């Protein structure tokens, strides 16, 4: 009887655990108030109640909601592609060596597929068939052979993927109270079986990527860190801001690309891969996975009617990120070509340092050049061509330019005439990292303190026990500053403030109420396994 009850309790707890999506809770806890509150809050946050259409009228009616979103996304994924000049792909011609080609061209094996299926996170949101990856992990003994057959048939013999290609688009709010369709991020929920296929492809491609992709791209490649990019950016801005003679200065341009994944043109992907020299079979499968898709948008848990996209790659598909950086390689190489032809001068921060003209992190692009009108012209030409060919749109309003302090206003104006992007005194952040420090580092980095405290003070954290609070501190609150800490030394004062907040939270204080700190701070910060 008691074991029965335990079993039921466990099941219920698992349900709340999955619902609450608190991924930092590694090994389940009791089915407590915390999970209930967390999941109810999540639900409230993700429910869409009203939405504005493009004319500005607000609708609450459910069918109208469906049609607004359907219109919006059909529009985004619709293509009117008319660029057939293939010279743009010359820059990426024959990048794949024979050795890599042979590696890519070998048939896929069962081992690779199995590996890929294990890589998929067990408890993430499932696709239209409702089976999470956990199901596949758990019952691999039973269904494994069939899955291997099916997947290998598609990968090696170009079987049809028509049955599994349906995908839900889930809407994740980008802002706090979204009211327009643009304020949602469309995340695709593919069937896990399709994910297994694309993951296998991705794992294969991943291995040859470091040989192809430029050093300026630091995303998704093993051995390259996002902090590399932010450090280089920081150093370069440090160099740009150095005092020097009049009008012999530099400029940094941060580009914002609108809907980078959703607007990538299929023809562009195909031509890029072809030109790079990927094996035709592989290209065929990749394009199959990208193009044979039908979407339904999930609105408050209900899917809309399906529609066929005509461009774009899915966010949430393991393959997409690699496809994207392969395509961004075209842009990177175009800039490189112009750099070789002396149309664009990169910035070398020291005499023998490699000149840096651009840095990429997926769709975060930053360009550096001399503040001369000719270089502005060259950049604009590249951007125009790349936009036309790839379907990407640079959002000129959201992009920024920063000039060296010695550049006069007239000079800036002239540069801006060719590259119509607004100038600003400093880029606040690039890749979440400050690019420049003022007099007081503590002030510049104060946002970390706010973020830590806002994680701790939420009302639902009240319902945690001592142990639960300990885990929350260790796993969440103390993890927030790590990203900044990997590049910069936090001022001592700031560290102390953060530690103080952590202590007060641990003893149960919140904004309104102070609790007694029952022991010395040092006792809390002793490490778990002190050494002999």
């Amino acid at each position, binding site marked *: 009887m008691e074991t029965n009850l335990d079993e039921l*309790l466990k099941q219920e707890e698992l349900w709340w*655990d999955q619902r609450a999506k608190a991924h930092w809770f590694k090994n*389940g806890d009791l089915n407590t108030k915390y999970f209930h509150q967390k999941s109810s809050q999540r639900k409230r946050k993700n429910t869409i109640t009203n939405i504005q259409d493009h004319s500005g009228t607000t609708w609450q009616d459910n069918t109208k909601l469906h049609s607004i979103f359907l219109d919006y996304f059909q529009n985004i994924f619709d293509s009117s592609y008319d660029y057939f000049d293939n010279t743009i792909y010359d820059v990426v011609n024959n990048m794949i060596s024979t050795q890599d080609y042979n590696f890519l061209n070998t048939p896929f094996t069962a081992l690779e597929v199995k590996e890929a299926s294990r890589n998929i996170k067990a408890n993430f949101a499932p696709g239209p068939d409702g089976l999470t990856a956990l199901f596949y992990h758990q019952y691999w003994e039973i269904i494994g052979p069939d899955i291997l057959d099916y997947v290998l048939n598609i990968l090696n013999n170009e079987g049809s993927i028509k049955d599994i290609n349906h995908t839900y688009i889930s809407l994740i709010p980008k802002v706090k109270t979204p009211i327009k369709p643009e304020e949602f991020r469309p995340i695709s929920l593919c069937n896990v079986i399709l994910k297994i296929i694309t993951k296998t492809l991705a794992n294969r491609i991943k291995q040859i990527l470091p040989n192809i992709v430029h050093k300026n791209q630091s995303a998704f490649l093993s051995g390259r860190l996002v902090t590399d990019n932010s*450090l280089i950016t920081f*150093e370069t801005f440090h160099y740009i801001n150095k005092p020097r003679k009049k009008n012999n200065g530099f400029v940094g341009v941060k580009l914002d690309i609108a809907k980078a994944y959703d607007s990538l043109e299929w023809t562009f992907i195909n031509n890029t891969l072809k030109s790079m020299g990927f094996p035709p079979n592989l290209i065929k499968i990749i394009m199959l996975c990208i193009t044979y898709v039908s979407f339904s948008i999930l609105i408050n848990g209900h899917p809309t009617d399906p529609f066929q996209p005509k461009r774009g790659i899915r966010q949430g598909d393991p393959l997409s990120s690699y496809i994207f950086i392969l395509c961004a390689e075209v842009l990177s190489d175009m800039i490189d070509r112009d750099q070789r032809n002396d149309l664009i001068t990169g910035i070398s921060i*020291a005499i023998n340092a490699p000149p840096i003209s651009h840095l990429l992190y997926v769709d975060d692009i930053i360009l550096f050049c001399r503040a001369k009108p000719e270089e502005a012209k060259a950049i604009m030409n590249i951007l125009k061509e790349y936009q036309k060919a790839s379907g990407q749109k640079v959002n000129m309003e959201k992009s920024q330019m920063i000039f060296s302090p010695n550049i006069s206003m007239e000079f800036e104006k002239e540069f801006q005439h060719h590259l119509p992007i607004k100038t600003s005194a400093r880029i606040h952040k690039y890749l979440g990292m400050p690019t420049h420090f003022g007099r007081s580092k503590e002030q510049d980095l104060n946002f970390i303190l706010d973020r830590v405290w806002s994680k701790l003070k939420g009302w639902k954290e009240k319902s945690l026990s001592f142990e639960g609070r300990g885990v929350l501190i260790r796993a969440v609150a103390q993890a927030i500053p790590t990203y900044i*800490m990997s590049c910069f030394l936090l001022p001592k004062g700031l560290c102390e403030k953060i530690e103080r907040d952590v202590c007060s939270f*641990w003893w149960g204080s919140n904004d309104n109420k102070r609790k007694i700190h029952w022991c010395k701070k040092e006792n809390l910060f002793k*490490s778990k396994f002190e050494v002999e």
Partner: protein
Amino acid sequence: MRFKILRDFNLAMLAKQAWRFHTSPNSLISRCFKEKYYPHTDILQASTGPNPSYARRSIYNAIWIIQKGTCWRIGSGQNVKIWEDHWIPYHNNFKVITIDRGDSNMRLVKDLMNPDGQGWNSEVLEGNFLHIDSSAITQIPIIESTNMDALMWMFEPNGCYTVKSGYKAIQIWKARSQTTARTSNENNSVWKKLWNLNTIPRHKTIIWRILTNSLPLRSELGKRGILCIPLCPRCESKVETLNHTFSSSPFISRTWFGSNVNLKILDIPMFDFQEWLTHSLLNVKEEIIIQIASIIYNIWQARDQSIYENQNLPEEEIFQRTSRCINDFLLANSTDSETETHYSEHPSIPHIPTSPPVSAGS
């Protein structure tokens, strides 16, 4: 409660950047840094360089960690200086003990090897070094004398720096430099034992709170300026102190005596509960400590209940709860180990959602 000391963690992370610059000198960022700040030397030897940015200064601040915790793996011995560098593993800070007399012309480790690069030149070693040094040196294997010398991080088996071991190293050095090394050692092994106990985390936390004197006992509340009657809520005649709550009150000593551990608390003269607990943590078998922890937890629960619900629990109830806690935990853990073995074939799954609760019931 083993939260991270942010400053130290910060340094450990920055040391990782320095390590990356050192080990992959061809990456874009390493090349930029090298050309700008230390074109003629290595990051580990360099000063901050001209007009350093904040990032450069930050990383410079963490260099000492790498310097202190690494040791050269001898390949050809061409780059390692005998007297200055760290190159003898598990030896006096990795350095030679013999004092450099300055009269020999041996500078590099290469000079101590046989001319053909095979093995150590024992004559030179015996002639110039103390025995303790020379015997340590001869134990260093020379694997391939054509190999480059390379730095190893001594706190990881594979010699690669990690932030985790870097943080640990900082803590070790800190502990060593403290003057009260002996007492802190004892304390450390207590904490180590405590956090390693295989029992319900709540029970560990309560022991931690007793040992750090951070339970809201009425006597303590009084000390902190909170107005309340400092008497024990159950007997209402004596002051509620640690000793009273957990050992000397008659109800509690009956509880201890009747419980599975069968303790006669009153028999011990000059009894101090914290001391006793520390002592038992260090010397008593783990199963019994688990029992003790559980009893302590339930005594505390009973105390809370008598305050907030006005209910005085009998001793039997405490015995029952104690054994129930432990049994539930064992039961839950046994299924846990089953699921774990089941999952051991899939080591890459980070989140095991079917794992049972840390404790059931109670």
